[in-house]
C-alpha cells in the first residue's frame, strides 16, 4: 500500500515538475496551492475550472468576433484577450498568458491572420492545459484515495 502511495506521490511530483518545466504553469499556480486550506479544500480545482469555463466563453466570443469577415471588431477581441490574459495570469497558466500577449499585439496591429492564428493556438493550448491539469487532479484523487498525503512540490 505504502509503495503504491509513494509511487503515486513520486509520479505526482514528477508530473507537476514537468508541467512547470514545460512552461504550462508558473509560480502563481504555486501561490494558488498555498491558498488552499481546510476551509476551501477544492480551491485550486474550483479556480481552475472557473478559468477553463472562462476560457471557453472568451474563445467562443473571440471566434464569433473574428468570424465577421469584413468588419472585425478588434477592440472587442482585444478586451476578451485582455480578460483572458488576466485570468490566465491569475491561475498561473503561463503558456496561455504568453500567447495572450502575442494575441494582444496582433489585435493592436489589427492583423486578422495573426489573430486567427493566435486564437487557434490559444484554443489548443488551453485544451492541452486542461487535459494536463485533469491528469494532475486525477493523480491527486488517486493519492487521496490510496490514503496518502498530497506532497508539497517545490519548484
Amino acid at each position, binding site marked *: 500500500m505504502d509503495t503504491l502511495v509513494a509511487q503515486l506521490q513520486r509520479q505526482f511530483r514528477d508530473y507537476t515538475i514537468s508541467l512547470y518545466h514545460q512552461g504550462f504553469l508558473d509560480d502563481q499556480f504555486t501561490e494558488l496551492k498555498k491558498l488552499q486550506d481546510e476551509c476551501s479544500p477544492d480551491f485550486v480545482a474550483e479556480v481552475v475550472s472557473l478559468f477553463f469555463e472562462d476560457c471557453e466563453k472568451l474563445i467562443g466570443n473571440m471566434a464569433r468576433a473574428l468570424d465577421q469577415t469584413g468588419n472585425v471588431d478588434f477592440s472587442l477581441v482585444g478586451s476578451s484577450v485582455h480578460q483572458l490574459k488576466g485570468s490566465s495570469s491569475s*491561475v498561473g497558466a503561463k503558456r496561455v498568458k504568453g500567447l495572450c500577449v502575442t494575441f494582444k499585439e496582433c489585435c493592436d496591429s489589427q492583423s486578422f491572420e495573426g489573430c486567427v492564428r493566435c486564437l487557434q493556438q490559444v484554443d489548443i493550448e488551453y485544451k492541452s492545459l486542461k487535459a494536463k491539469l485533469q491528469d494532475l487532479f486525477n493523480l491527486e484523487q488517486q493519492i487521496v484515495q490510496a490514503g496518502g498525503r498530497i506532497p508539497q512540490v517545490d519548484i
Partner: protein
Amino acid sequence: MSIACELSNPNSKKTKAEKRITTKILLIRVLCGLVVLWLCLSLSLGFLCICKKKEAASDDESSSSAKGMLFRNQKNVSRSEIDAMLSLFFDSNQVTSFECRKESDGITCSLSTRSEKEEDEEEEAKRHFVAELMSSSDNEEEGGVLREVVLFYVMNKWHWWLVLCVLLVGGGRMIFARKEVSSFVQDKQQQQQQCKRAGKWSKNMLLLCIIAGVSLSVLWFWDTNEEILFQRKETLTNMCEERARVLQDQFNVSMNHVHALSILVSTFHHGKTPSAIDQKTFGEYTERTNFERPLTSGVAYALKVTHSEREKFEKEHGWSIKKMDFEDQTLVQGFDPAPVQDEYAPVIFAQETVSHIVSVDMMSGKEDRENILRARALGKGVLTSPFQLLKSNHLGVILTFAVYNTNLPHDATEEERIQATIGYLGASYDMPSLVEKLLQQLASKQTISVNVYDTTNASSVIKMYGSEVGDMSEEHISSLDFGDPFRKHEMHCRFTQKPPIPWLAILPPGFALVITFLLGHIFNGAINRIATVEEDYQKMMELKARAEAADVAKSQFLATVSHEIRTPMVGVLGMLKLLMDTDLDAKQLDFAETAHGSGKDLISLINEVLDQAKIESGRLELENVPFDLRFLLDNVSSLLSGKAAEKGIELAVYVSSNVPAVIVGDPGRFRQIITNLVGNSIKFTQEKGHIFISVHLTNEVREPFETEDEILKQRLGSDETSCNTLSGYPAVNASGSWRNFKTFQDHSCDKTELLVTVEDTGVGIPVDAQSRIFTPFMQADSSTSRTYGGTGIGLSISKRLVELMQGEIGFVSKPGVGTTFSFTGVFGERERDSSVAALELFDQSIQEFQGLKALVIDSRNIRAEVTRYHLQRVGVSSVDIASSLATASTSCASKLVNLDLILIDKDAWNKEEYVAFNSGQETSTRPPKIVLLATFTTPAELSEIKSSGLVDEVVMKPLRMSVLICCLQETMGSGGKKRQTNRKPKNLGNLLRGKQILVVDDTMVNRRVADAVLRKYGALVTCVDSGKAAVAMLKPPHDFHACFMDLQMPEMDGFEATRRVRDLEEEMNKKEESRKWHTPILAMTADVIQATNEKCIKCGMDGFVSKPFEEEELYSSVARFFDK
C-alpha cells in the same frame, strides 16, 4: 572606451572630419586653377606680343594693312561712334538706312543708299568703298592680318574656355564633394565609383592641358623661328640688293668713261688730220685717267681695216696685223700674222697695262669679233661673255664701243651704223678683282658671300666671281644690268655661315614646355594624392563605422550579459537570504553571510558595468520626476551611516535653505552619484575626520559675498586647508573643486542648478593620478584595488551621469589632507503642492514642533549650523548657537529664557560644566529638554549617560529628519502614541485583519484568487463583477475600508468607476461635514507601466497593485492606508 565618447555624437565628428578634408581638396583645386590661369595669361600675353610684332611688320610692308590695323583698332569703337561717323555720310550722301551689328568677332556694317537719278556712278562707288572698308575690318582684310586676328581671337577665346573648363571642373568637384558628404552612408559604393570617375576625369583633363601646353609651346617656337628666318632672309635680300646696285652703278660709271674715251678717240684721232693721238698719247692719257675706270684692267683702241686697206695699213704702221692666239696665253709675243679676212680690227692704241695687244686683230678672237659686230650695230657698249683674259688669267669681260666717224642720230639704222664705223674701243674688266674691290668697300663683307653669274645662256651659266662656300640653303638672286641688253647677269648672295641655332626661338617655348611638364607632374602628383587621400578617407570612414558598430555591439553585449547575470544572481541572493533565515549554526551563518555579501558586491559591480554599458551605448535616459532632495540625502546618509560609524567617521548633510524643497530630476541617478562619492570618501577615510555633503544653488556659490548661508561663508572664507571644518580635522577648501567649472549658467526660472560637494578628510588622491581618476577601471594606483577594493568604474559612471544632468564634476585633493568632490546638475523646479508622498507622513509632526525654541551647543561652528539646518527642517524655527556650555550659561543667558530644547554635541559635553550650566537654569519653571548629539558612542558610554539622568535623549548622528522627529516626539512627549503604531509588527495579516474589502473584477478567476489571497490575511472580502456594481456598493455610507479595482472591465472600466465613486464621495462630503469620505481605491492591473500609474492617480485612485498579488507589494501599498 574613448571611442565611445565620440560615439555620442558621431555625426558631428564625421562632418567635421569631412569638412577638413574637403577644405584641403578645395584649396588644392583653387591653387591648380590659379596656376592654370597664370599659364593661360602668360601664353595669351606671348601671343599678343607676337601679334603686335606682326602688326608692326605688316605696317612696314604696306599701307593697306596699316589701314586694316586702323580698322581693327576701331573694332572696339562703340556703336555711337560709328553712328557719328556715319552721320557724315548721311550729310554728304543720301544714305537711307544703316545697319550695324556688333557681333562676337567684330562689327558688320551695311549701308544702303537711295540712288538718285542725278547721282553719278563714281560717287556711288566711293560710298560702296567706304562701306566695304567698314566691313573689311572683319571680312576682306589682307589675308595675313586676318589670319593673325582670327588666331589671336581664337587663342584668346580658347584660353577663356580653358579657364572656364577649369572653373567648371572645380565647381563640379566641389558639388561632388558636397554630395559625397551628404550621402556618405547611404551610397558609399556609388560614391566610390564617383570618386574614381572624377579622378579619371581630372586625369584626362590634365592630359588635355599638357597636350595643349605642349602644342602651344611648339606653336610658339615655330612662330618665333619663322620670324627669325624671315628677318634673316630680309637681311640677305637687302645686302644682296645693295651689292648688286653698287656693282651695277660702278660698272655703269666705268662704262660711261669708256664711252667718253671712245668719243675722245673719235674726236681727236679721226676728227683731226693729222691725228692728235698716237700710241704714246693714248697710253699716257689712259694711264692717267685710269682712276675714272677703276674696274677696267685696260683699254685699247682698234681700227676698222678692210682687207683692201690691210697692206696700206700695215705699211703705214710698220707692222702686220696679228692673229689672236688662244693656245698659249702666257706668251703673247708669238702672234702669228692674221689670216686673210674681209675685215680686220687691229689694235692701234692700248693702255700701258695691255700694250702687248697692239697690232693684234681683234676680229680674230671669236668673242671679240661677235662683240665688235654687235657694238657697231647697236651703237652702245656691249659685253662679251666672261672668258679667260689674256695674260692675267682671270675671268673677265670685254666692253666694246664702236667709234663712228660721224655723229650718228639716235634712230640711225644698223647699216648706217656699220657704215659709219671707223674703229672700236675696248675695255677689259677683270671681274673677280672688280667685285673684290667693290665688296671691300661695303660693310659686313664677312657675313655674306657673293657670286656673280652670266646667265645670258640659261643652259650654261658662267660664273664670273665667287666661290661655292657658305650656306647653300638660302640664296638671294639680284639681277644686274650692265647696260648691255643682250647680256644678262645675276648676283647670287648667301650667308657665309649656317644660320645660328635660334636660341631666342627655342628658349621661351622651351621654358614654357618645361613649366607645362612640371605643372603636369605636380598636378598629376596632386591628383594621385587626392585620390589616395580620398581612398584612405573612405577606408577610414569604413573602419570608423565598423569600430563604432563594434563599440555599440560591445556595449550591447555587455548590457545583455550583465542583465542576464543579474537575473540569476538575484535568485542566488534571495536563496542565500532565505538560507540565513533558517536555523543555521554560527559557522554556517558566517559562510552564508559571506556568500551573500560577495553576491551583493557582484550585483553592485554588475549594476555598475550595466550602467557604464548603458551610458556608452547611449541608452541611459534620465527620468524626470519630482523628488525631495533633502529626503533623498537623509536616505543616503542613513544608508551609509553604518559604514561611516564603523570607521569612526562623522557624516553630515547640509542643504542650503535656498534649494527648493522639491526638484524635478532623476532621483535614482542623483542618489547613485552621491552614494558613489560618499562611498569612495568612506572607503578612503581612515578612522578620523568627517564626510560632509552639502548642497547649494550655483547662484549662491557664484556670488559668495552676497550669500547669507553661514556654511558657505565659513567654507569659502577659510584658507587652502583649514581646521574650521565639521570634525575639526583639516580639509581642503572646497571652492577649488568647482573653480574649473565652465558653466555656472544662468537658467530660466523653472530650472535650478545645484552644486553638491562631498568633502572628506581621507588619504587624498596622489597628484600624478589626479588626471585619470575619471577614466573607467582606473584607480589611483594598482595597489588601490588591493587595499580598498572596488573596480574604479564608479567615478567614471558618476561623471557620465553628471554630464547627462548637464553638469560638471570636479575635485580638489591634497594627499594626506583629503579630497573634495563637487558636481553640478540642472534640475527642474516644482511647487511643493504636488509633493512627494513620503513627506506627508511627517507633515503632522512638523506642525507640532512649530514655534519651539532651541539652543545648540557645539564647539564646531559648521556642525552647529548643520544641526540648526536639521532642526529647521523639522519645524523648530528659532535656533540659537553657543560654542560651549560655559559660554551658553554666561554670555547667552538672555537667550536661555523659555527654551524648549537644548542640543549638546558630545564633543562639547562636559559633565561638570553641564552641572554648572544646569544649576543656572534652576529658576526656570519649565526646564528645557536636553538632547545629546553623538557621533559614535560605545553602548556602555551611552547607557552611562542615559542612566545619569542628565539628558533626556541621545541622538546618534548623522542627523536625519525621521530620526530627529522620533527623538523630538519622544522627548517632548507628544508623539508617544504615534510611535506605538509605528512599531507595529509589519505583518500583512495584522494589517488587513477584519477589514472590509471590496474586490471588483469582471473575471471570475481573478475575483476568486483575489478573494482567496485577501481572505488569507484575514480580510472580509466582498466581490462584485462590474464597475457599476462597485459604484453602487461604494456609494456612501458604506462599511468598506478599501477597494481593489480591476482597470479593464466591460461597460464601465476601473477609471470610470473610480471617478464616479469620487464624485459620490464629494457629494456626500458636502452634505455631511462630520466625516470625510475617501475610500482608498487600488487599481489591480497586469501591466504595470508608468503611464497607467499616472492615469490611476489622475482618476482619483490611491495606488495600484499588480495582478497577481505579491505579498510585499500588497503590503506596501495597503500599509499606507491602514497603518495610521
